[in-house]
């Protein structure tokens, strides 16, 4: 679906992202909080898109990376390591762990890969729970982070918004670069036909592992920032399975395989989520479920589908996407 690179939308996306940096000069704390979460969600969605959209592997490991990053960075921050160093370490640890895991898990396909990636978060959660001296176990981990600057609420809100925003910018630039690179081309080959890709000389195992690691590294960094931002993390919070599912929903909302779609999907998803939280707190997870069902049944190509339906002109890319979905399903059935 992303076989040809679309330059205009990418440029528009970058302009919009850069403009977003002005938010601290206009918004109050609540807006900044939403903005920070929006950037975090966008990082999760864009990252997932590398393994899920570009390589076509249904990964549920986002929660594992987020928790790993939150705890690696959180433990370091709690010991007084500077924020930038903590983020870098979390990214490096997650990259290494993902390369290692990827080498093993990415031999699986379809359901088996999905479950194995889901299980990683469960194992990490239990390990975090039982390593009480290091992580505080089920009691959670307090992260007292001194930022300086008078430590006012407004300053802190702006600081973490800008930090998360900068991370999103780096993440989007990195993924855009990957999409245009040899790696991105190789991943598209793998998505379409892995055996054929292997045969024409794409080092599938290495490429897939790299994609998996890329889908983890920025998520882990976002996890560290999140830990520093909320000052307190606990295993059920940062290894939440919803953290693995929400990015998928965001990407599907924006259209599978497109970076700009992932960012827009994340923002729209947050908008819906916030609206539901405000109005129907008791049933927010049910409404989220309903949204997922409607999305998957009636909008298979994300929000673009709505426009297509209204115009009633089946365009060529849509047909290509449908064929892609079918091809994937045949492959999934063969190995699942």
């Amino acid at each position, binding site marked *: 679906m992303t076989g040809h690179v679309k330059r205009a939308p990418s440029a528009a996306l970058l302009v919009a992202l850069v403009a977003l940096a002005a938010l601290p000069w206009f918004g109050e704390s609540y807006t900044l909080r939403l903005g920070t979460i929006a950037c975090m969600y966008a990082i999760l969605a864009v990252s997932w898109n590398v393994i*899920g959209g570009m390589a076509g592997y249904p990964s549920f490991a986002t929660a594992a990376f987020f928790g790993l990053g939150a705890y690696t960075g959180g433990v370091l921050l709690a010991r007084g390591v500077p924020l930038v160093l903590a983020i870098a370490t979390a990214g490096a640890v997650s990259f290494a762990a993902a390369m290692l895991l990827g080498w093993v898990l990415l031999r699986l396909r379809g*359901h088996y890969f*999905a479950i194995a990636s889901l299980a990683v978060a469960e194992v990490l959660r239990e390990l975090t*729970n039982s390593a009480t001296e290091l992580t505080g176990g089920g009691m959670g981990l307090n992260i007292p982070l001194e930022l300086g600057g008078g430590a006012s609420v407004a300053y802190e809100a702006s600081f973490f918004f800008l930090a998360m925003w900068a991370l999103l910018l780096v993440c989007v630039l990195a993924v855009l670069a990957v999409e245009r690179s040899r790696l991105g081309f190789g991943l598209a080959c793998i998505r379409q036909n892995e055996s054929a890709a292997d045969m024409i000389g794409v080092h599938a195992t290495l490429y897939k592992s790299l994609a998996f690691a890329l889908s983890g590294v920025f998520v882990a960094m976002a996890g560290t920032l999140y830990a520093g931002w909320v000052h307190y993390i606990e295993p059920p919070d940062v290894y939440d399975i919803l953290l693995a599912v929400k990015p998928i929903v965001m990407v599907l909302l924006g259209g599978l395989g497109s970076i700009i779609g992932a960012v827009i999907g994340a923002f729209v998803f947050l908008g819906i989520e916030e609206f539901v939280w405000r109005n129907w707190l008791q049933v927010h997870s*049910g409404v989220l479920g309903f949204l*997922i069902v409607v999305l998957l*049944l009636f909008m298979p190509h994300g929000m673009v589908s709505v426009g297509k339906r209204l115009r009633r002109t089946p365009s060529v890319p849509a047909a290509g996407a449908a064929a892609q979905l079918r091809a994937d399903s045949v492959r999934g059935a063969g190995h699942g």
Partner: protein
Amino acid sequence: MFLQILVNGVVLGCLYACIAAGFSLVWGVLNVINLMHGSFIVLGSYLAWGAYHSMGVSPWVTIAIAAPLFYLMGYLVQRGVLNRVMAAPVLVTLTLTFGMDLILNNAMILAFKADYRKLILDPPLGTVAWGSVVVPVDRLVATVFALVLTGALYVLLRRTRMGRAIIAVRLDRDAARLMGVDVPVTYAAAFGLGAAMAGCAGVLLALIFPISPLSSIPYLGKAFVVCVLGGLGSVPGAVLGGLVLGLVESFGAMAIGPEHAVTLSFALLIGFLVFRPQGLLGKRGFE
């Protein structure tokens, strides 16, 4: 002590087999991982709890009510929703059943609150002892029922017309269609059977474990592990996988402490996925 742990493991294993048999059937035949399975089980537990405490219906009778009720529910869910995405990739079906599970689980929290409830038989059934081995009678009865139910599923698949159609679709969907098997109906029947097994397992588990909407994820996790251990889509595989998991958990809990039981079972899961993804009894066929 060894004997006691062995018995505990076997009791647990039979219950796990019953939890996983329906899940395995749906996964094997429809190629869909039904993430609602855990919530179906909890719903079955609530049915048993409600029937016993508000109407005085014994759980043994509730099983007979739960089976057709859950079958119907599963049949309708498959025909109404899942059937629309049967040709879609793994990601879509997984996420879809996840979304439906969110709805179902939220509905249960609204209806029953998240408090833990317990079905308490009056009078209690007590315990039996052979030498040093002590087993609560309610567990024993639940285990026997779990085995009977799993056996019934096996017989149903081997002996009935519907069962043979399900197996045929699993082996080769296109050939089955050419032989005149109505594939969508067969899918719905298989999904209905899976739901019925989950509901009945839930009724049995209500006798032993506290009931809460929060239990659905752990039940689902067990079903996953058992399926991967035993091999996908086979009843004997589910029984073997269930027994292995039950024994590993009870011996593992003694050896390295009960707090590591979940880590152990998931480590087992990943190990099997990587080194023997077809499971202990894995074959393409379904017997």
